[in-house]
């Protein structure tokens, strides 16, 4: 029980912190995905088909996925980064009796909250634009799972990157390209086999597959489900190792 209590305590302080500026936080996370939705989905993509789907239905789950991805990642990573280097309050956590696994999960939850709020907001806009999308519980489960995995990724990066510039560079060089390439805006089937294979080694690809399948009622992509779980476990283990190393 202490584990659950500890996770909540770690999460509690981030939640308190977010409460002060939650409107701006959520609003800013919606700007980019809404622009994508309008420009690519509604503007460019009208009348285009991907396989036997219209492009708008294809791209909406992709944009929901990339929103979950970038908002969860940034939500978890930026708060932890601030705690480490600006508030310096992360040390307080390390000196407390709270165990590493509770710190990691607790620190990821703010990303889950921010990511899922933003992604659901985009999904609701998507429902208006393309009423054929399904409202399914499995979709929401997959969305939560995706946000959790991406938040753990954010925690991991904030633990191993030690400078402000480093964080910025990582976002521009790794996160941003991933949001475009991982089957969000175009189908990976159009790509050469090598490129496709590479993209399958990125977590967002699996998340986009899962979200698209569950929101359009396609057959459940078990491979991507397992793939996403593996990423989650890998990020978590990475975080444990990084925390252990941080005390040298």
């Amino acid at each position, binding site marked *: 029980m*202490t584990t659950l*209590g*500890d996770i909540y*305590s*770690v999460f*509690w*302080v981030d939640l*308190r*912190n977010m409460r*002060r500026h939650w409107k701006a936080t959520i609003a800013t996370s919606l700007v980019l995905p809404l622009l994508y939705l309008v420009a690519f989905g509604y503007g460019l993509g009208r009348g285009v088909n991907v396989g036997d789907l219209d492009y708008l239905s294809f791209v909406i789950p992709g944009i929901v996925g990339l929103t979950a991805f970038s908002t969860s990642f940034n939500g978890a990573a930026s708060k932890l980064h601030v*705690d480490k280097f*600006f*508030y*310096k*309050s992360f*040390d*307080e*956590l*390390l*000196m*407390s*009796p*709270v165990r590493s696994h509770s710190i990691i999960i607790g620190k990821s939850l703010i990303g889950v909250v921010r990511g899922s709020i933003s992604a659901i907001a985009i999904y609701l806009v998507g429902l208006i634009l393309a009423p054929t999308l399904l409202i399914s519980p499995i979709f929401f489960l997959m969305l939560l799972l995706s946000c959790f995995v991406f938040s753990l990724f954010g925690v991991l990066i904030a633990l191993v990157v030690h400078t402000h510039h480093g964080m910025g560079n990582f976002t521009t060089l790794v996160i941003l390209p991933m949001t475009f390439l991982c089957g969000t805006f175009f189908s990976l089937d159009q790509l050469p086999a090598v490129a496709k294979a590479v993209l399958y080694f990125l977590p967002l690809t699996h998340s986009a597959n899962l979200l698209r399948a569950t929101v359009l009622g396609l057959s459940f992509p078990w491979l991507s489900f397992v793939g996403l779980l593996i990423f989650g476990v890998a990020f978590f283990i990475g975080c444990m190792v990084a925390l252990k190393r941080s*005390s*040298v």
Partner: protein
Amino acid sequence: MQDYIYTENLCKNYGSVKAINNLNLNVRAGEIFGFLGPNGAGKTTTIRVLTTLTRPTSGYVSVGGYDIRDEIDKVKKVIGVVQQHLSLDRDLTVRENMEFHARIQHLSSSKRKQRITELLEYVELTEYADKMIDMLSGGMKKKASIVCSLLHEPKLLFLDEPTVGLDAQARRRLWDLVRRLNKDGTTIFLTTHYIEEAEVLCDRVGIMHHGQLIAVDDPANLREKVGSIVVETLVDNKDTHYQFFANREVATNYVKRLPSEVKTVIIRESNLEDVFIEQTGEKVGDP
């Protein structure tokens, strides 16, 4: 008396920098122990090792009677730490920060309320409890950090340069608070590079220099060892020389016999800075 902090041949290297170099230290239960040393002496590194944040390169360390390697959870329960830099969530209020610390120290919800009210009163912060940390003055921020470290009633409190940046009055009020905590049963380990602070506040003082402990004793003994009277002379109007004497009489005799070219002569009681100069050949603050 029991040793609350005990280190044996403690070393911490950062690459080729020996931040702590063979430190043998003991702090007794109930005392205020001062760790005095210039910038870069290794004070913060020592605190980080003693508070489990940094792992030592080699050597044995026990804190509160527990081995820092095997009994880290027990160590964490007995220590409270106020870091050199502010380490509170600045976008939260004093109360929220306290609540957070109380939670991660596993205090029950009723105990949390009680301790928070108690401590706010103890340091006279009650009326600022719901102000954001960023709105507080430097002295109040320090107090807020201190109460956050006290919620779980630690037996041993670490204070890393607690009075840096405070005005003379705030500094004295903080000293009073430290004394009061000590009287109420908390062992205190504090670092400082203010000579005066070590003299008036600490039962014993350790002088740290380049990662090594060069002297440990109570302030009066330390002064006596180098000589309780100092004669400062200015030679050629540029170099200050220090001579130490056991008493004023010997010192005055020495001054009488000085050659006439030596113009400026000061005779005064020695302080810890003199101890430092005598031991290292440098002044506190010299690189």
